[in-house]
């Protein structure tokens, strides 16, 4: 799952930053050294550091932007997809009727009848599989392939007033 990868990468990068600060902090007070050589070495290392960040950034951008979740909203939807209309309202979801089976690609046509809401879809293990904003006057189209059978939970992902936390709905996906 992407969430696990993100967690590990974040912790590792934070530890790298922490390590650099700890190293300098531990060496800051002892054996005072001349500044110009430190400065020179730091500048040389920084050039490398900068270019590593640039190359990594280009690679990350290319890899992660090959498949954006916006295609369905631009009208690019698979022919065999099942369409489901969903409208957020204070404080419930109006979910259209559809028979869903595991493996279906579902096109969620998401909008709102009043304020901003956010449609967040969680799989039977309560891991988010995708989301989009539900906004009055606009139609955001979310395309997701629901691989697992079971009960998916819809939570509201945008604060919308008094009962926001209880704006929950369920979608059943058969075997």
């Amino acid at each position, binding site marked *: 799952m992407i969430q696990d990868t993100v967690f590990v990468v974040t912790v590792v990068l934070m530890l790298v930053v922490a390590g650099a600060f700890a190293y300098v902090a531990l060496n800051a007070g002892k054996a005072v050294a001349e500044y110009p050589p*430190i400065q020179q070495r730091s500048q040389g290392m920084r050039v490398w550091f900068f270019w590593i960040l640039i190359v990594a950034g280009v690679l990350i951008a290319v890899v992660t932007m090959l498949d954006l979740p916006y295609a369905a909203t631009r009208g690019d939807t698979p022919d065999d997809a099942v369409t489901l209309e969903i409208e957020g309202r204070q404080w419930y979801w109006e979910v259209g009727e559809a028979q869903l089976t595991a493996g279906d690609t579902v096109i969620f046509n998401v909008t709102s009848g009043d304020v901003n809401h*956010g449609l967040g879809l969680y799989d039977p293990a309560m891991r988010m599989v995708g989301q989009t904003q539900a906004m009055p*006057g606009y139609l955001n189209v979310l395309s997701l392939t629901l691989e697992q059978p079971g009960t998916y939970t819809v939570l509201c992902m945008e604060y919308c007033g008094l009962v926001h936390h209880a704006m929950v709905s369920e979608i059943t996906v058969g075997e």
Partner: protein
Amino acid sequence: MAEQTAPPLPPSGRIGVVVYLAISALVFVLMMVLGVLMRLSQATWVELSPNLFYEVMTAHGAGMVGISGLAASGVIWYFLRRYVDLSVGILWANLAFFLFGVVLILGGIFVGNYAGGWTFLFPLPGTSAGVWGTGGAASYLFGLLSIGVGFLLLYLDFARAIMARYRSLAKALGWPQLFRNSSDEAPPPTVVAATMVLIVNIAGILAGAVVLVLILVNLYAPQFAVDPLLTKNLTYFFGHVFINATIYQALVAVYEILPKYVGRSWPVNRIFLAAWTATTLMVMAVYPHHLLMDFVMPTWALAIGQIVSYLAGLPVFAVTAWTTLTIVHRSGIKWDMTSGLLFVSIFGWSAGIVPAIIDGVIAVNHVMHNTMWVPGHFHMYLILGLVAMLFGFMYYLTDQGSRKGLD
């Protein structure tokens, strides 16, 4: 070290800065109490009704963002005043507008029951399903407007004073040294930072004022149609710029104080100047990363949101954090609360933006937007970054600066 040519700071100016920081420290504590209250409620240790919970949430969000802005502006004002002739009257006027705004906001929330979140996303302020009335929402929005007017005056005064001394904002950003190889001495770091801050914050505050007025008119004349996507863009442009600018203002404490501890100057070279000019543009261009799940937004805008989120981290890692580590490394620094907090603040800032940059990736945002990951990021970044800078400055101002002859 750059020449400090402004007239001596009158006592009322120093008192003003101390009052800014004292009020900020107090409000930070009060807002932390509200934060703890929300957690206790979620843990079912304390029972809050849903609307009281969301009122507390709204007060906590607006209060923390506002007070971060006030405290950070006090820090940069204190140091900028050494180089340019800022108006002490405007410093106090900003505080007056701020406190007036706080009264309206607290009245709107706890008397008028407004609980629309600090982001006041249209049309929620006027569409509460009967939970709060128009008066409560209007009081809250007018309060924010008042605070915005005060800050606008403050940053216009920054612009006036900087242009009086450096003749143009381009010169104050060091563009002659950056683009034309000028051999004149570059402006000091504080002036460069203040110029960036005044540019982005004037733009951000004006955007905020536009959206506040649009919503206020709509509250009383609902036939005046307002586009929810336009207002969302304006809100997040304003909100992102304003909160992001707080750390760039408080950072000046690191620029001014840490070099005194290590006996090494903060280098104002072309990399430094390029970083600040790039940051000026990026802080304003990055806000679409708050709208990555608004699929109707143009794809190019959302792509900019992802790419600039990454790029905006480069000056933090490769310039600010790198320079901090370089000037402290084997410097014989004496650790005390001031130097320790300022050093930690750069760690907190650098580490705290890691989860934000990752969440700025569209594919990640798709499963993590508006989850607890986001408050996790900004609490770490603000507490270990901004608050550490502010408290480092407070120790310096109240105790160590004068006692240790640093000032």
